[in-house]
């Protein structure tokens, strides 16, 4: 993959920033920006409600987005794709749906891991509290890697869901999702994957992974903010009522004998209450096309090279730099989090910003993981994407080298 050629498609890079914060949100290529602009200028209308040409044109574009996304993750059909706001909302919707339909009830268990983003922990904790179920935490090892070898001993007939981050947003570690799915399925539990950090960076085949649900965000994969995806197996979704009712979710509402009866719409509409993210769906379609043109295998390979190079170069700076998580680039993808002695990570972030480098600092919505890693004040996280080249890593490491020289007496 020619990262230098790719960079030319991203106008924001023209301001000279070295952008190493794609795990938080990716930059947008011209084609995505342009597709949304053209759609808003020429084809915008609300979907599914009008018989006029413009509304039908908008509806076609919106439905096509479901199909494009479904093919991207190798879903069986387009109607397994539900558009939501982001990954957080996708997991929230799933947790609420399973509770609302008594899939999770009193005495049941949901398993998540200590490595997960809060978005994959808090929705389950809240739902469990409401229905009287229990959330169990699979522990991590000293590198922040989930101890999946313990899962077999944790699951039982009480386990209804095993939910976990496919790739960690702190360490970048990629879990073996299929292995987890097989253990979960052995007790009849459902498998919910948080794909926020994996779907943008590697080829995802939901059937090969044997997942039941997958959540991810458009804005981390070149698309706009305001659109995310909850994918679910059709045979499961079609038997579930949505927890959120409203416009666009029903075929018919009737009043008979003083009772309101609701006939829910087909998939995926029953789960997309209210006017959906129409323009955002058009942007996501274009984002997926852009990624497919580059090739997800090539993207993954490119990011592994960047990750490996970053680990090697940071290690050259000596033991004052502490890398969080595994140091083996073969098991992680696109993310390197680190600390400089006890120095406040956000101060390091300010330092790097002065050199034109954008990184994320803090606890990255993974407080328990940072506590476990002995980094309760957070970490500095560099994360990569298709528009990053080895030169970006050099700039990061050189700036860190300068910082170490500046503060050497205080360390």
């Amino acid at each position, binding site marked *: 993959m020619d990262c230098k050629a790719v960079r030319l498609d991203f106008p924001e890079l023209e301001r000279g920033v070295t952008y190493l914060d794609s795990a938080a949100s990716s930059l947008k290529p011209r084609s995505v920006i342009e597709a949304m602009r053209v759609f808003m200028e020429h084809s915008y209308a609300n979907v599914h409600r009008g018989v006029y040409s413009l509304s039908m044109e908008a509806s076609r574009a919106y439905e096509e987005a479901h199909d494009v996304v479904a093919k991207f993750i190798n879903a069986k059909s387009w109607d397994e794709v539900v558009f939501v706001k982001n990954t957080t909302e996708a997991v929230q919707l799933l947790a609420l749906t399973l509770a609302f339909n008594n899939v999770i009830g009193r005495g049941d268990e949901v398993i998540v891991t200590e490595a997960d983003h809060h978005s994959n922990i808090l929705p389950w904790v809240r739902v469990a509290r409401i229905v009287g179920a229990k959330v169990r935490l699979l522990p991590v090892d000293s590198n922040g890697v989930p101890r999946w070898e313990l899962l077999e001993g944790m699951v039982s007939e009480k386990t209804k869901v095993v939910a976990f981050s496919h790739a960690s947003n702190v360490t970048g570690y990629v879990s073996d999702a299929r292995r987890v799915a097989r253990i979960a399925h052995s007790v009849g539990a459902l498998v919910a994957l948080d794909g926020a950090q994996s779907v943008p960076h590697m080829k995802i085949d939901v059937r090969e992974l044997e997942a039941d649900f997958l959540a991810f965000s458009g804005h981390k994969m070149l698309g706009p903010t305001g659109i995310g995806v909850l994918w679910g197996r059709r045979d499961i979704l079609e038997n579930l009522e949505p927890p959120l009712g409203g416009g666009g979710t029903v075929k018919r509402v009737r009043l008979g004998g003083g009772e309101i009866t609701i006939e829910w719409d087909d998939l995926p509409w029953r789960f997309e209450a209210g006017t959906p993210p129409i323009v955002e769906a058009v942007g996501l379609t274009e984002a997926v096309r852009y990624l497919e043109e580059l090739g997800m295998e090539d993207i993954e390979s490119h990011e592994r090279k960047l990750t490996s190079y970053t680990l090697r170069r940071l290690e050259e700076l000596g033991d004052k730099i502490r890398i969080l998580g595994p140091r083996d680039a073969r098991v992680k993808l696109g993310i390197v989090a680190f600390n400089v002695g*006890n120095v*406040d990570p*956000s*101060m390091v*972030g*300010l*330092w790097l910003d*002065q050199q034109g480098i954008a990184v994320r600092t803090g606890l990255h919505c993974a407080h328990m993981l940072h506590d476990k890693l002995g980094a309760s004040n957070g970490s500095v996280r560099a994360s990569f994407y298709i528009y990053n080249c080895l030169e970006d890593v050099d700039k990061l490491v050189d700036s860190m080298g300068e910082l170490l020289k*500046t503060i050497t007496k205080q*360390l």
Partner: protein
Amino acid sequence: MWVLAEKKVELTKEAWKTCTDKPSARLMVTLEEASSGDVIVVVGEEDFAPSSMVMKLISRWPTEIVDFDGDGYSYVLKVRKL
């Protein structure tokens, strides 16, 4: 020396209370919002916010160091915005 106002920023572990309340962000905002002539007092811990690093960060804004007092573990830095 005349002083329009004195603002204090603590760059200490104790001041780091929540994941959204970052001392570094307060330092940046304080410097950004300070008027010419304002003195900013930075109280810091060397292992958490090394003074040499803070001085370089502060140089991003038009400032002058008014006073520095430190014992190797903690320090008080007075900076005037020009």
